[in-house]
């Protein structure tokens, strides 16, 4: 056990840090905390820069355009990105979910076709798992795919799909056999989002932002070979996706939480609405220190499950711990900001605290315990698959 970087890791970290500082420029760190929304062109350009420098898909096998590096390198990449507040790669769903699933289940042609543009950010992926009638209960998915000649014809509706409005491809769970027992009737398609019959409608969240979308499929024709695994294997393929979602996500979550902790420390040290410095209040100090402990515990829990990932290639179900713990910690953190800001917390633009940064963060955090597996589902997973209690249903 050694929590320090090896000589190679330290060299990688140093090179990366210099690259980030040079590429983002000196104005980056001193930029306003909150400003501007998502800009697709900028995000894609940044993704391409990351890709050209070799920082995307660090741990993917070299044969698929990855760096072939141990998983610790991805951890270092995310730590350093968080340190400087670097923007994320545009293809989060592709990198974290679609890509690893294609590597695990895809044919050689599929790997050749999809992985390179996914890494470079030229093609953006979204996820079509949840439906209006089946959020947590994916096995109840109703979106149908019927084989017609050499094409699957897809009809149905998906929801909570991040990035669908800019996505080129969708990993889609469909029902191909309505007569089979519910999990066995599912299949896993790779769907071109530019196909006729695909309609994306933004879904406004409590923040007012249209971050998620509904996707409607009306007689969408998908080539027969655009399936991962065999018909009826969709559930197992989707489980690979979700394991990776919850497994590798941990590092991004830690990185984000570290940035948020730095922000709340900054907030607590400036005079609040009552003119007092919150950081002088022992109750606030206690809460911020607990957040620091929660962050470190998350970090080292990730590192420990990374050791498992390194050994087996698959993140263990312990990844559920990271998501569960992160989401509740982030909610406590943003609620503390709300308390510190008082009524000024209401002002969500000019005149507000940091132009409404915290109002947005606090409202957004309520989705954290719902998206990517609700806390209730994660507690079921931990009870049943990790601790080994009998199934609740």
């Amino acid at each position: 056990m050694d929590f320090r970087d090896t000589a190679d890791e330290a060299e990688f970290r140093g090179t990366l840090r210099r690259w980030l500082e040079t590429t983002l420029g000196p104005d980056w760190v001193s930029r306003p905390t909150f400003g501007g929304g998502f800009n697709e062109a900028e995000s894609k350009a940044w993704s391409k820069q990351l890709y050209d420098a070799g920082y995307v898909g660090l741990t993917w096998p070299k044969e698929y355009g990855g760096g072939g590096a141990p998983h610790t390198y991805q951890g270092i990449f995310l730590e350093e990105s968080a340190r400087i507040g670097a923007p994320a790669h545009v293809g989060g769903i592709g990198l974290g979910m679609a890509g690893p699933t294609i590597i695990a289940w895809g044919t050689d042609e599929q790997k050749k076709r999809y992985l390179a543009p996914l890494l470079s950010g030229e093609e953006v992926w979204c996820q079509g798992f949840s439906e209006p009638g089946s959020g947590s209960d994916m096995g109840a998915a109703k979106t149908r795919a019927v084989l017609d000649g050499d094409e699957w014809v897809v009809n149905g509706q998906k929801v909570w799909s991040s990035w669908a409005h800019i996505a080129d491809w969708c990993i889609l769970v469909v029902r191909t056999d309505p007569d089979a027992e519910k999990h066995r009737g599912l299949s896993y398609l790779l769907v071109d989002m530019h196909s006729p019959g695909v309609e994306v409608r933004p879904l406004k969240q409590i923040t007012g932002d249209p971050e998620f979308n509904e996707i409607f499929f009306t007689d969408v024709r998908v080539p027969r070979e655009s399936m991962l695994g065999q018909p009826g294997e969709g559930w197992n393929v989707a489980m690979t996706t979700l394991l990776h979602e919850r497994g590798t996500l941990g590092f991004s979550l830690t990185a984000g939480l570290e940035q948020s902790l730095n922000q709340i420390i900054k907030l607590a040290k400036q005079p609040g609405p009552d003119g007092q410095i919150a950081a002088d209040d022992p109750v606030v100090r206690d809460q911020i220190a607990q957040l620091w402990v929660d962050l470190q515990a998350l970090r080292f829990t990730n590192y420990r499950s990374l050791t498992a990932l390194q050994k087996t290639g698959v993140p263990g179900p312990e990844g559920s711990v990271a998501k569960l713990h992160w989401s509740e910690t982030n909610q406590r953190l943003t609620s503390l900001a709300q308390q510190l800001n008082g009524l000024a917390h209401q002002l969500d633009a000019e005149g507000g605290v940091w132009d409404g940064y915290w109002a947005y963060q606090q409202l957004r955090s309520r989705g954290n315990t719902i998206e990517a597996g609700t806390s209730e589902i994660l507690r079921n997973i931990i009870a049943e698959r990790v601790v080994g209690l009998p199934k609740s249903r």
Partner: protein
Amino acid sequence: MDFAFSDEQELLRASAKDYLADRFPAARIVELADSDAGWDSNTWKELADLGWLDPELGALEHAVLAEESGYTLLPAPWWSTIGLCGALLDSELRDGVAAGERRVSLAWAETDGPSSISGAANDSATSAEHGTITGTKVQVPDLGLATDVIVVANDGLYAVDVAANPETVIMRSTIDRTRRLGELVLSGTPARKLDAGLDALATARRNALALLACESVGVAQRALDEAASYTKERQQFGRIIGTYQGVSHRVSNTFVALQLARSMAYWAAWAVSAGSDDAEAAVSGAKVSAGEGAVFACEQSIQAHGGIGFTWEHILHRYYKRAQWNNGFEGSGRQHRAAIADKILA
């Protein structure tokens, strides 16, 4: 970066598990805890033979042993000797410990005087002159099992042979009967000044806290295992109670607390072993996470057991009391969060 114990350390864990499971099943722990002596004095020689007292062991080996001894609630002054006093022993005591002949504890607290190990000498009314020491120390861990006590006096550290001066020892009734506290009443008692100075107390405190965090992880793991095995079997209203989410989510929350505590405890053990700059913060973080985590785990487990978990007969309360012991040692979570806040809000 490497976050796993080495193969050798895992072998050490496996052999510790075997020994503890063989010699200290739950019924034996109960029997020893409720006995006057509070332990089986043959244990110390066995630990020496197994290598638990080997001065060559590092902090990570100690971490593994602490976790396993917490899981079993090993009744022996191992943590007091190795965790609390390891950094303070002179060659005479070190050799005696390694041979399985000496057992050591630390006496720092005084009524109306110091309560924390760091700075314990500052307000101490305990003083030494001409090879003797005078003063009264309270809350001395495992005092009844120690052969020697390292006493913090106002000008340094002194070793007192309590085996040769049994009249100095007054045991107090302690809720955790596997790690009892006593009072040490010194009145011109022969004492030997140690080479280690008062500044070594900071190291001793860090080591003790890191190991105790690992021990708390073992306690929490046991509380979780008890909850899991009970809720897998127990039926009410015709269903296994573990299928009720009101029960199973309590178990999940315990698992989460345990994993977080384990991560922090291992970090602290590593930071101490490597002399990392983060050691002080890591140890405080581990104190918060494992100290409070073990108490939480025991409370959740007691609740999951229902009435049986509240009985003296059930093993759980023994773990609960140890969890509270560990949580109370050298400042509870509140004080360690305050220390962390001083660092991150500076």
